[in-house]
């Protein structure tokens, strides 16, 4: 007995491919989720009642139900209505909507955390609301939201393992299939875990650099 990682050597290309799929799905979901979050946050803070209610409903549903159920509804359920997604599309859609719901709250609270006096000072100088958002509020909100957003992004990368159940050969599913041919579960799971750790660490490293860059004015 003992650990023997050498049995995995022939599977390196497969692992790389699986990791690449995980990165693609995560990255797309992060970008789309972020766009949803910005739209969501502004809707939630908008004076338009119906917009606020729609966003509240969206956030409520996607935060209050399991991601797995959301993915299954999108991939296995919705085809019943005549719309069939590819596994990749379903995966990105599900993860984006899920990330977007959490990130909406992050962006909203960051915008509200910027001192009210900043809005007033910008307005008193004749800035329009969009200009004040772009030049004054946005940069300050960004600084506030980075730590929470990084957490959310790390969650999304880890959650992407669930899309293996939509028959996508991403990192986790690659591992499963290597186990069926080698029976070395521990080595495989350890390697898989290590690769996730590398991906999330890179993300956290980028974020910490970003945070340092923004800390100049404290």
């Amino acid at each position, binding site marked *: 007995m003992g650990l023997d990682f050498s049995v995995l050597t022939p599977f390196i290309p497969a692992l790389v491919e699986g990791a690449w799929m995980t990165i693609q799905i995560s990255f797309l979901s992060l970008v789309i989720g972020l766009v949803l979050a910005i739209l969501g946050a502004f809707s939630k803070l908008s004076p338009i009642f119906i917009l606020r209610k729609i966003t509240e409903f969206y956030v409520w549903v996607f935060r209050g139900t399991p991601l797995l159920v959301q993915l299954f509804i999108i991939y296995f359920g919705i085809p019943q209505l005549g719309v069939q997604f590819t596994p990749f599309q379903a995966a990105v859609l599900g993860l984006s909507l899920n990330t977007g719901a959490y990130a909406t709250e992050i962006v909203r609270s960051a915008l509200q955390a910027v*001192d009210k006096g900043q809005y007033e000072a910008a307005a008193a*100088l004749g800035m329009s609301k969009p200009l004040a958002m772009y030049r004054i509020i946005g940069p*300050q909100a960004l600084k506030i939201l980075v730590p929470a957003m990084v957490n959310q992004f790390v969650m999304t990368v880890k959650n992407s393992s669930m899309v293996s159940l939509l028959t996508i050969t991403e990192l986790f599913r690659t591992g499963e299939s290597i186990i069926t041919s080698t029976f070395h579960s521990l080595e495989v799971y350890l390697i898989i875990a290590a690769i996730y750790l590398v991906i999330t660490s890179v993300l956290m490293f980028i974020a910490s650099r970003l945070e340092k860059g*923004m800390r100049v004015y404290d």
Partner: protein
Amino acid sequence: MIEMRHVNKYFGKKQVLYDINLQIEKGERTVIIGPSGSGKSTLLRCMNLLEAIEEGEMYYKQDLVQGKESKKRIRQELGMVFQRFNLFPHLTAIENVMEAPIWVKKKNKETAKRKAEELLTTVGLSERFDFYPSNLSGGQQQRVAIARALAMEPELMLFDEPTSALDPELVGEVLNVMTHLAKNGMSMVVVTHEMGFANEVADRVIFMDQGRIVEDGTPEQVLRNPQHERTNTFLSRILA
């Protein structure tokens, strides 16, 4: 320049301004005094529409104030200095001053920079151009804020208790800058508790209490010869 007619203002159900009739002329230096909660800050904030006027009318240069256009115009032509400075923390002192001229008035960067340097020098901060607000004292921050408002070349400056958030030893430097401005002919409306400033600089003093203008006249009349008991009480309390 600014005229208010029968202005009432409410925060929720609570009325905070009662039937305000007021005319502010260009070239005037008006000081508004009164106990806290008397509505003086609210009145000032109504002038540049940071607070909405629910009842009554306001005229700006004879035009009825309504809609986005007049709001834009008023805010570009009136400068505002806040009690809590409200500098932009992510910008340096000079960037704070350059921001609105560049983005609102579309001045080119060089022009805006030269003007900002000049203004910061005038308020005594020639050594602090590249400091972030967090590295400046309260008095220095407030002077940057004054320079920031002046950079828009306002026709009238509004000061909302500009020294109330300052440590006592820093009050003087800000009042000096304001006095200097006044002596150079800047029109201003100042909400303050600094009676010395009112006495020296104002050509008009307004006393407010419980949302009403109680007294309105020269410093001589209002500060030394008040007609109302409430003014007397307030003055004796604040000068004691």
